[in-house]
């Protein structure tokens, strides 16, 4: 990944598992199918003559609008997943995300209150997990999805140990 303007210089970003892209594409696909089925239903009804009173612009416009946004989001997905990065430094953890709205976050180990690892059913099927760091500030909002399970567990232990060693109060 090319280093973006707001990324600190000389940081080697770690990337999330490539399987995470497949997971995101799968859930994106499910979402697309369901949305198109729901929004396309009136169009089918109208074309088959069951519901002739339904306005044509709405019947065509709605599914086309949703298809376009979903297609756009689907096209962005690979780049979005590639834009997720993390780096463990001596004193803090760096997290980055986003293509259009980018964010680079610095969480000092000493400020971490606790670390969560969550695994959903789809994630379990892919062998992935989601790591979440909590500080005393709700704005920290530091989630890291798409880690391989082993890496998530290692990171959790590592972060907890680091946090304990450097723990500061509030």
């Amino acid at each position, binding site marked *: 990944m090319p280093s973006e*303007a*707001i990324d600190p210089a000389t940081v080697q970003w770690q990337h999330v598992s490539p399987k995470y892209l497949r997971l995101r594409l799968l859930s994106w696909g499910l979402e697309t199918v369901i949305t198109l089925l729901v929004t396309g239903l009136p169009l089918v009804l109208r074309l088959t003559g069951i519901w002739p009173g339904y306005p044509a612009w709405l019947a065509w416009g709605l599914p086309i609008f949703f298809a376009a946004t979903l297609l756009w989001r689907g096209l962005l997905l690979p780049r979005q997943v590639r834009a997720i990065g993390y780096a463990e430094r001596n004193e803090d953890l760096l997290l980055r995300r986003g293509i259009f709205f980018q964010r*680079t976050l610095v969480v*000092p180990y000493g400020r971490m209150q606790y670390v969560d690892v969550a695994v959903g059913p789809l994630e379990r099927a892919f062998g992935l997990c989601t790591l979440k760091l909590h500080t005393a*500030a709700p*704005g920290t909002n530091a989630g890291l999805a798409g880690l391989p399970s082993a890496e998530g567990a290692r990171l959790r232990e590592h972060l907890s140990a680091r946090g304990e060693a450097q723990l500061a109060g*509030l």
Partner: protein
Amino acid sequence: MSAGATRGPGEEPEAAGPDPAVGTEPEWKRVHPVSPLVRGWIALAALAYFVGRDQVESGFAGGGMDLPAGSALFWTLLALGVALVVIAGAFFLSWWFTRYQLTHDHIRVHSGVVVRRQRQARLDRVQAIDIVQPLLARIFGLAELRFEVADAGESAVRLAFLRLRDAQQLRAQILEDASGAEETHPDGDGDAGDATVPGEQQVLALSAGRVIASVLLSGTTVLLVLAVAGVIALTALTGEAASIAAMVPIIFGFGSAYWNLFSSGFNFRASVSREGIRLRSGLLDTRASTVPPGRIQALAVRQPPLWRIPGWYSISVNVAGYGAGTDGASTARTRLLPAGTSEEVLRMLALVLPDPGTGDPVEVFAAGISGTGPAAGFTVSPRRARWLSPLSRRRNGYLVTETALLSRHGFLWRSLQVVPHSRTQSLALEQGPVARRLRLADLVLHSTPGPVSPRVVEIDADTARQLLHEQALRARTARRRDLPEQWLRGSGPSLAKSPPAGTAPVPPSPTPVAPPSTPVSPPPTPVSPPSAPVAPPPVSKEEPPHEHR
């Protein structure tokens, strides 16, 4: 235990000092026996309402108050009696099963009748202590004590209700133990028989006129004018008077907003002791909050547009235990100053930021609260940011001192945010698509929940990246030499190294706020060096009230 348990005989020796015999378990005490009544008066009021309404309605129907006769009367009275007994029993049980204990390190509360709850909080984790008196409790001379820790939600320990004197004594004792002070009240003045406010010194008191004027000129008025203008425009456009009806909820909404601002800011007084800063305010419900030194996570000095006429500012703070509630009570207790002149703002800042980490704090903070451009060393947004913020470009900026980051923004609604380096939780750079085109970025500092969300807006992207790096470093260094949680134990180098008080950190004296033994001189704070014209000694025009609550 008898009804007088709240002031049991064991209290006096215990309150006398933190050195009771180690082996003896401190006594368990109960809250005041009237307290369930004060808390549960709503149930009684509801009962009275239902019974009374029946009586009145039948009275209107029959032309007179004909009481039910014979057996009907008997059953009514029986039902009423049973209800009263049940309520009284519930009150008694809830009182009986609520007990608290204060040891040297912990406060413990046991409560609940069916579901028992035992809660214990470490004293040195205290973030703030409030003594709150709702109107009814005030009538009974009772008060509620709230012990806040950093869980951002409800109070860790709520003792409702104690006698006001007992609550004050408990607070003094908790703060004494939490501070890790080696001895009790070294100055020893005024705590004989009055253990409430030894060495407390009033810094600021706002007159009722100031509070009323500040409410009338507040941002609420700007919104009200906009709302009325909107309704009038709508009426003119549609030609219907129906939208006038929309005024009714608007008036009610704004009326209650005005009332909240007024009643919570009424009689505002700030004072300082070695226990920290104590703020008192309230018209009907009163509160006294005590925030120990170093518990303020971030603060913001704000000025809505109309306050420019009298030149007033308000200060809000993030305190970890207070959370981010938006109702009247929550905003009241996060307000360090409801409406003050710039001189009063500097005086309050001197209390919460004893070491501003700059040579000329007066100039720096004056530039922060009302200045524009690069004066006093502020780094402002580059010229290309005018596409995003045409008005506030020269106001948006930041300044780093040795101890804090100052971020100012807003052209009409001015605001200055201050985050001590040692209180920075985490940091982030954010950049949207337009900002990236203009090579700008925002630096977000994450703070505990509260009214202040510190953010440095629209600075040059390279500067921002550099700032992120430096700020992470500064926060790390500041954390290392941070004030210990027990603020009187050992030395707090970051706060004790201020030039005027730059003596060797003598254990009992590195208190960052005004030493209680100096009644006239200002706090030894660089924001208000004794010679500075803006920060005269804390004025206490009237006799500091004898610990009003």
